[in-house]
């Protein structure tokens, strides 16, 4: 019980610190502005109907800004404890390294959950208002509102993977900038994994193929989370429930693996 209390204490302080930072509000403000402005981009509509465009644009905003926030907040909130030496004071107390790391990760995830909830709420409200203003074409809604929140959940799980990766890099790195740059690089590698995995499958020499495929497992395939096309719009093919569970398990496995490695490094790190 004490252990849970310690983790929760670190988590609550991390969250408090995070929501006090201007950066969070800047990202939130930009996100809100982009969603509110999405209706004015209709002239760029390439033949897709208006609501579909707004949904895609909103999903893109959540994906893009959430990624920036996840990496920046994870790096900053972890590394500031090392640089300001508050970690010294904390780890001189009966606090285990993994309790500290887990508390940090949960604090960042709480921040990202708030970000996702606020953006999904705004997204839903905007789409609802837009839908009301459209001429009635049938009895059924054109937007599957529940799926907007499902997309938020999937992205939140993806942010968890990024947070784990940042903590892993931060547990080794000696500077804030390095942690940030490498974390962004890792995210890019993850986004492009699907290309690499396709080309690995074409390697004829089996041992080499297995080797590179095994090494590729070190990086998550972040394309797994790009399911926006199957969510939100009434005309889209629904995302099967089984696939949703698989995605969440995939995110959970990578997050835990990265956290485990981060803990292993951090425990050995001299402060």
């Amino acid at each position, binding site marked *: 019980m004490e252990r849970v209390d310690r983790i929760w204490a670190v988590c609550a*302080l991390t969250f*408090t610190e995070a929501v*006090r930072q201007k950066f969070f509000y800047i990202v939130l403000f930009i996100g809100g502005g982009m969603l509110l402005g999405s209706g004015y981009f209709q002239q760029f509509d390439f033949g897709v109907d208006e609501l579909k465009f707004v949904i895609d644009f909103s999903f893109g905003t959540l994906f893009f800004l959430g990624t920036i926030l996840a990496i920046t907040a994870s790096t900053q909130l972890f590394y500031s404890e090392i640089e300001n030496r508050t970690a*010294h*004071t904390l*780890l001189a107390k*009966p606090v*285990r390294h993994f309790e500290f790391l887990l508390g940090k990760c949960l604090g960042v995830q709480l921040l990202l959950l708030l970000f996702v909830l606020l953006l999904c709420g705004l997204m839903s409200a905007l789409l609802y208002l837009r839908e009301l203003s459209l001429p009635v074409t049938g009895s059924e809604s054109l937007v599957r509102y529940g799926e907007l929140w499902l997309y938020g959940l999937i992205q939140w799980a993806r942010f968890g993977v990024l947070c784990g990766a940042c903590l892993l890099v931060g547990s080794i790195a000696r500077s804030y900038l390095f942690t940030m740059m490498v974390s962004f690089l890792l995210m890019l590698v993850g986004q492009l994994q699907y290309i690499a995995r396709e080309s690995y499958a074409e390697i004829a020499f089996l041992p080499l193929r297995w080797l590179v495929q095994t090494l590729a497992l070190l990086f998550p395939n972040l394309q797994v989370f790009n399911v926006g096309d199957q969510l939100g719009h009434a005309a889209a093919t629904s995302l099967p429930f089984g696939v949703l569970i698989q995605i969440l398990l995939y995110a959970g496995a990578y997050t835990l693996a990265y956290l485990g490695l981060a803990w292993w490094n951090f425990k050995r790190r001299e402060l």
Partner: protein
Amino acid sequence: MAEAAIRIEGFVKDYPVGIRGKRVRAIDGLSLEVGANQIYGLLGPNGSGKSTTIKLLLGLLRPSSGVGTIFGKPAGSLAARQALGYLPESPYFYRYLSGRELLRYFARVSGVARATREERVVAVLERVGLSAAADRRLSTYSKGMLQRIGLAQALVHDPQILILDEPTAGVDPEGTAAIAAIIRDLKERGKTILLSSHLLSQMEDLCDHIAIINRGRLLCEGAVEDLLQLKGAESYLVEGLDASGQAAVKAGISAAGGSLKQVTPARRGLEHLFSEAIQAEEGGAE
């Protein structure tokens, strides 16, 4: 034999420098023993290895060789850390928290039971004299207040041993005196205190045992009284003698087979004078 509060046996700490694997030795075979209920001063110039020794005891660094124990438990272990309170050098805390919030946080992570947490926080704030400023943000605290809140967080889980790294660094004489008074009070309450400093006069007044280290090596160690005692010499503080009286004293010493080595006017320390002047001013203002 009573168990030592802190025991260090042959601590060696090497740091790798550069990419060629060259190593610099920060601590070189250091062995110490701090008895229970002592105020033990770790003295040395900057870079002598005081903070490194402390970090090794806290488990923030790992020794290249040697062992440290806290009441018989391995240094750095959870059980050892439970018995320790630590004030880092130039402490930095979460500036957006108030003093009370900071102590609640550290009490919580230190495992102070929820039922007694608030009581404990209030008691520690009282002990370090920050009750009036408890709800102010740390960003508004002076250097001396930050040191005191640092001391409070070290005390909040009522540890048996306090490790204080330069507790008076950058603090004015008045603040220094307040911190010294808290440390003496802690000793009276049965705590063991290990403190590091390079401010010798403060350490002389405060510590009952000291160790002087330089370049990671122990130069000397023991009770302050024993170390500072000049063997076979005594000093007398005399006032009111005129020139003939002084001559008579010198003649008397000579006749008794002694030899007068030095005569200097008696003087107070600057720290003493400063404290007296401030206290007189504040006493007059009331």
